């Protein structure tokens, strides 16, 4: 039977089910329930949980352990993920898998503890020095947080690339009724790990690295796009939203549809690679795209505009940016009406 679970606890338990053997992290609100939960749960399972001295140390512990092939992860929130970027850059440089959870809070600097999506551009563009990408998965419910976490180690190992679960403060704090999958372990062995014998680890000479990076990320972008399209078939205006704003946007679609408005929703599940294919499916009746996001200045909207360009959808792209809150259903419907009646100016 389904039980009520808090988002952060659920994602931590899902990691255990997925075969995570080692966690290293540092407390920061609103993700602290993850290390708290694991500091009790992992010893119970005979696994290792280390409270590191800082975020950087935690990410290098993960680098070291995953070099040896151990399923392991770290988690943090906005400012802490900034500190981890150096290590993430190294992990990508070495084609290592890793799993990171970012329970986002609002703002630059210390910011606030409010729910937000203000880390979108940093996390989908790599975030550290050098040219690389992190695969970013964005659940919009606690069940989906579990399901994506359960897959994330497999994805990270398949592509030898870090996977981030991008959560939000409210998604980490809220509770929903969920079910957990069975405990599993990796199937088969990784043949490149460090085991002391100095066997090949798949390192490339510098002269081949640029081409290899392009090939790798092009391949992931091509084959790993995920999204959910909702009532888009005949939609004239399409909302684009992920995470919690996608839930209020979906409600807005239903309410507006009930009043005869032709609206739909594209919900990216992979933020990188961005699901451009979702936009290819849109018909010629589309008159506008509306990015609904918990940011201040608009971040997701850049990818929406790029996807539209790629798919030759030459329509205005509008943005509803709710900053440190989640746009309410009513606000989204009102924004739509303003767009439709020409009272809103497009961003792109």
């Amino acid at each position, binding site marked *: 039977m*389904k039980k*009520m679970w808090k988002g952060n606890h659920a994602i931590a338990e899902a990691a255990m089910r997925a075969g995570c053997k080692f966690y290293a992290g540092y407390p920061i*609100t*609103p993700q602290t329930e993850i290390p708290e939960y694991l500091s009790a749960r992992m010893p119970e399972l005979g696994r290792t949980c280390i409270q590191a001295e800082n975020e950087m140390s935690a990410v290098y512990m993960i680098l070291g352990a995953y070099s040896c092939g151990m399923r392991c992860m770290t988690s943090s929130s906005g400012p802490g993920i900034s500190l981890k970027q150096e290590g993430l850059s190294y992990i990508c440089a070495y084609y290592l898998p890793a799993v990171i959870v970012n329970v986002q*809070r609002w703002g630059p600097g210390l910011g*606030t*503890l*409010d729910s937000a999506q203000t880390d979108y551009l940093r996390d989908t563009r790599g975030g550290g020095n050098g040219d690389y990408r992190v695969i970013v998965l964005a659940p919009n419910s606690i069940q989906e947080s579990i399901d994506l976490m359960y897959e994330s180690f497999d994805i990270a190992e398949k592509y030898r690339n870090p996977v981030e679960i991008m959560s939000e*403060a*409210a998604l980490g*704090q*809220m*509770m*929903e*009724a969920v079910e957990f999958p069975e405990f599993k372990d990796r199937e088969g062995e990784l043949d490149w790990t460090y085991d002391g014998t100095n066997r090949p680890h798949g390192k490339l000479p510098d002269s081949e690295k640029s081409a290899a990076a392009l090939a790798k990320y092009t391949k992931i972008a091509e084959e790993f796009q995920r999204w959910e399209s909702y009532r888009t078939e005949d939609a004239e205006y399409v909302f684009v939203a992920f995470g*919690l*704003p996608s*839930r*209020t946007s*979906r*409600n807005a679609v239903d309410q507006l549809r009930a009043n005869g408005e032709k609206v739909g929703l594209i919900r990216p599940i992979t933020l990188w690679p961005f699901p451009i294919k979702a936009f290819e499916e849109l018909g010629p009746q589309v008159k506008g795209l509306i990015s609904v996001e918990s940011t201040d200045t608009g971040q997701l909207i850049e990818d929406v505009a790029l996807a539209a360009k790629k798919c030759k959808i030459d329509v205005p792209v509008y943005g509803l940016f709710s900053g440190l*809150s*989640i746009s*309410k*259903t*009513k606000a989204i419907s009102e924004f739509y009406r303003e767009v439709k009646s020409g009272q809103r100016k497009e961003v792109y």
Partner: protein
Amino acid sequence: MEIVFAGFGGQGVLTSGLIVAEMALEEGKNVTWMPAYGPTMRGGKAYSVVKYMDGVIGGPDMEEIDILVAMNGPSLEYTELLKDGGLLVVNSDAISDDEEIHLNADVVRVPCLTLAKEVSNPKGANIVAIGALLKRSGIFDFETAKEVMTGYFEEKGKGKYTEANEAALKKGWESV
């Protein structure tokens, strides 16, 4: 259905939400529970939002409230999100009966703490409020509510308070 329990930290408003969420789950609904967290927690302000329905639930935070339980004065600020025809349960031990509330809603005033003390359960004011809102709204019957609540506390290892909590629930139920 959107229910908000609001008050000061320590008045049990998070627990109230969890108990009612369990009732909705028992009836096979989709349920979300969200606590006030972070900055909202400072200054002792606390609330929890419970939403349940058969379909897909949207955002977990307050949008259009069906039932608001105000355990203290500041919680009345959320009445601006209360739907027309909604239900407002006011803890009259903390909010004076002289405080005028002009709303197109059903307003019931319950001395939650006084009633809780009457059944020797001074920490059960939040349970009294649940009893009152259930009776008034008719969303769950008394026996289901009692059973779910008891199960909730037993799972938390607080089974020894079962009798006192049931008494508080009954007291609230009978108060309206």
